[in-house]
């Protein structure tokens, strides 16, 4: 036998799964292009809106680039979620889940591989759009400095949490809930305060908004851009919520995996 003895956690197995997703990405240039396409289109659109409002809105004029920064950070959340759920769906389309889970791969190792490849895909997509914004609109989101890393990390983790819950639903209900992978994140967009302060929302809705890490991030982003200071409280609130949500999402996913085993769904995961 040439197999390595049991390891509870194996970087080799996680690496194998990351390699599998990189092979997929490398083998198809439209896939790579698709990563950057929507973030770039969004950035261009909101860049033009910014140019218009810069001379027609005193609010935007105070902080040029606030809308571009908002759309780029929103895409971090969106791409992070898609990076997990869409890649998981690819395993289902390929009827590969049975192969994977009959191997020594643990479900939590698959989760770590999914979030790793999500990071790669998000960096390709949003990174391209962020770099293009510099020559197109003379706006660099990187000028935000260290706070950008805090915003990026929080949105990434929140996106992974949503992505894992969608994966759990896919495991439990199959590809019939595929549309959730694409559409669910837009349910939280209006209450995340991406382009406007949370105070704009109806009073009764504001407590709900503050339950989302994304609301704290976008509010924190505006504080950096308008007041040139980093709101540590907002960062801490987002981080605490993210710890809660990512743990809950991991529990939901692992529970869905056990339900799938009990119901024999791992062998019926194709189209």
């Amino acid at each position, binding site marked *: *036998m*040439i*197999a*390595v*003895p*049991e390891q509870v956690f*194996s970087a*080799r*197995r996680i*690496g*194998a*799964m990351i*390699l*599998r997703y990189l*092979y*997929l990405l490398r*083998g*198809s240039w439209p896939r790579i292009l698709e990563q950057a396409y929507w973030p770039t289109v969004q950035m261009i659109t909101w860049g033009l809106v910014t140019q218009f409002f810069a001379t027609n809105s005193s609010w935007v004029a105070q902080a040029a680039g606030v809308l571009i920064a908002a759309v780029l950070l929103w895409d971090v959340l969106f791409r992070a979620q898609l990076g997990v759920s869409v890649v998981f769906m*690819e*395993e289902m*389309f*390929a*009827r*590969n*889940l*049975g*192969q*994977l*889970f*009959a*191997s*020594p*791969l*643990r479900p939590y190792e698959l989760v770590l591989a999914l979030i790793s490849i999500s990071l790669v895909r998000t960096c390709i997509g949003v990174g391209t759009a962020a770099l293009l914004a510099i020559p197109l609109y003379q706006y660099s989101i990187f000028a935000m400095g260290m706070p950008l890393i805090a915003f990026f990390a929080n949105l990434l983790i929140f996106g992974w949490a949503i992505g894992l819950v969608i994966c759990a639903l896919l495991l439990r209900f199959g590809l019939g809930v595929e549309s959730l992978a694409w559409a669910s994140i837009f349910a939280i967009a209006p209450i995340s305060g991406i382009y406007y302060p949370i105070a704009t929302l109806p009073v009764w809705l504001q407590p709900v908004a503050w339950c989302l890490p994304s609301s704290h991030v976008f509010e924190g982003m505006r504080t950096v851009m308008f007041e040139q200071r980093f709101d540590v409280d907002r960062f801490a609130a987002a981080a605490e919520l993210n710890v809660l949500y990512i743990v809950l999402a991991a529990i939901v996913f692992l529970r869905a995996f*056990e339900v799938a*085993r*009990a*119901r*024999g769904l*791992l*062998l*019926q995961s*194709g189209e």
Partner: protein
Amino acid sequence: MPDPAVAVEGLSKRFGAVVAVENISFSIEPGSICALLGANGAGKTTTLAMLLGLVTPTAGVIRVLGKDLRTDRYSVLARMNFSSPYVDLPQRLTVAENLDVYARLYGVRDIQARVTELGRHLDIEGSMRREYRTLSAGQKTRVVLAKALLNRPELVLLDEPTASLDPDSADRIRQYLVHYQRSNGATILLASHNMTEVERVSTQVLIMRSGEIVDRGKPMHLIAKYGRTTMEEVFLHIVRNGDPADRQARYSVR
């Protein structure tokens, strides 16, 4: 006395009101080829899936390679492998990429040498750079079989391994499987509808009907026991014995 390669005791699986497998017990000697027979829906695939840990049993105990599957599932999975028509490989990866990924998952050392060796034995050397989705059904079967042998498994579970192969390819695969089993001392559990194949390669047969094991033994003994001349006749006798309106009588060709 070595542990059985597989020891199953009181194994059952119900999906709601549907009984897929009902209280089956069997053991498989290490280094043997055991065939699991039964009509469609008899419970073969569910049984294999439970042995792989893909489906959790409703009741019963499974010991594989001397370990309890409930507590040592992952250490056992590294020592076994499988192929099945109910699962596939990533369509857009090349054959070489697919085998590379699975070799890493199973902790195979010297991946290139192992992939080359299997490519030669299973006649897929020329397909290594092709995307899996572009292969014929027969080529896909051979690639999935290569994946199933990557880690030199001590136990191989094969669900209809030659179902989509032409007679020549199927014969070569059977020869290779027997060669692999003998040269590695491996155990093979084979679910098949090809009775000629079963007669030719298996040392032990388990016959399932409606989720239960209704008979077992060596192929020659079963043929003698039922007074038939082939395993196909034995299979038809046992399967149809459970059906009072014998289809053979209704649809016999005169």
